[in-house]
């Protein structure tokens, strides 16, 4: 038996390794998981990361892992890899372009799994991004329904009513009255 290696903060200086842009070191993953050729509905997830004072967190890293449009998780051979990575900008904003995940019956309502990393976070935090236009599925989801109803909405990205490809907004509050639900998993 060995013991787990402790987590340490990602710190402020990860971008040249984890989210590089144009300095010759090609990223292994980025904001754009899918394009028009990917089976499924192309969507954008846009959001902000905020600290306990409501200020934007300008040096956070958000990673997502999600199922394909048919609900199955990608295998290594799939063109759609299901994994994305975005750092926040000067406004604390991040975005992903992906396809809306499907859901296998045994895996609850459609959702995207997310991990949040930042300077000042000694461990990353796990959350889930559900979708506001999946009310019927959401109301049956065992995870969502297990969460305190007053905090449940922090897990649901809201569909912005615009023409064009669907955009879902998801705010991640690290602390405070509106602290996002993070999971012990």
């Amino acid at each position, binding site marked *: 038996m060995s013991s787990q290696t*402790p987590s340490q903060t990602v710190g402020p200086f990860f*971008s*040249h390794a984890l989210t590089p842009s144009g300095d010759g070191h090609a990223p292994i993953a980025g904001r754009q998981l899918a394009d028009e050729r990917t089976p499924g509905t192309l969507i954008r997830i846009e959001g902000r990361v905020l600290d306990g004072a409501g200020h934007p967190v300008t040096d956070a890293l958000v990673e997502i892992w999600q199922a394909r449009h048919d609900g199955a998780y990608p295998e290594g051979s799939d063109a759609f890899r299901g994994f994305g990575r975005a750092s926040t900008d000067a406004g604390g904003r991040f975005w992903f372009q992906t396809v809306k995940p499907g859901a296998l019956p045994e895996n609850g309502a459609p959702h995207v799994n997310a991990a949040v990393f930042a300077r000042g976070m000694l461990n990353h935090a796990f959350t889930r991004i559900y979708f506001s236009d999946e009310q019927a599925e959401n109301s049956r989801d065992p995870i969502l329904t297990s969460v305190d109803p007053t905090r449940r909405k922090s897990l649901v990205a809201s569909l912005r009513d615009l023409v064009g490809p669907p955009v879902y907004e998801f705010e991640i509050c690290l602390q405070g009255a509106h602290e996002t639900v993070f999971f*012990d998993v």
Partner: protein
Amino acid sequence: MTSKRILGPRDWSSHPRQAHPDYKSTLLRSQRKPLVPLPQSLSELTGPVFGHFAVTSEDADLTRNAVRDGEAIGERIIVAGRLVDEAGRAIPNALIEVWQANAAGRYVHSQDQHEAPLDPNFLGAGRALTDSAGRYRFTTIRPGAYPWRNHPNAWRPAHIHFSVFGTAFIQRLVTQMYFPGDPLLALDPIFNATADAAARQRLVAGYSTELTEPEWALGFEFDIVLRGPRATPLES
């Protein structure tokens, strides 16, 4: 429901607690509400697969992967080790990414204001896949310590940042590797956020004569342990 193995919990006697007042940035960024229990499903037990598309052989040599017109400056080192789970089983084909300051303690990053020189031949970023025995190996430059503004005259001990994927999304680990004998370790709030001294020692690489290459580079060994299958009662 799934053939995937359930993983044991994150070991909170090993990981730091999230709120650690000595590390000022945790004050507004640490979670204050209890984490909500989540049973493990496919969402947690699957994870991205990074094949050889992600990595070239050059990527693991930070002394060469960003060379423009000369050699990277500083003390050349080899950092290698095994990636295993808590049961000691190798995790093969796993992606390990590293990043670090250069020998002068400066990152290639627009927000790094430390008045120390950049090295035009050193980026300080690399990655590797573990082999079938879970082994990885980087060649790099020993990073310098650097100042930060956490408290007066605060300096981070020399460290290399590690980002590690297992096979499950919830095995994800981001950590930092430190060097043996560094006097700054005792003073560092990030290192000391891990309360348990034995756990902290797992963040410190060991000097290795086997990894050291004569006339070339010092070797340091750093094994990484990810959470493994839930311990089950003894079966006969």
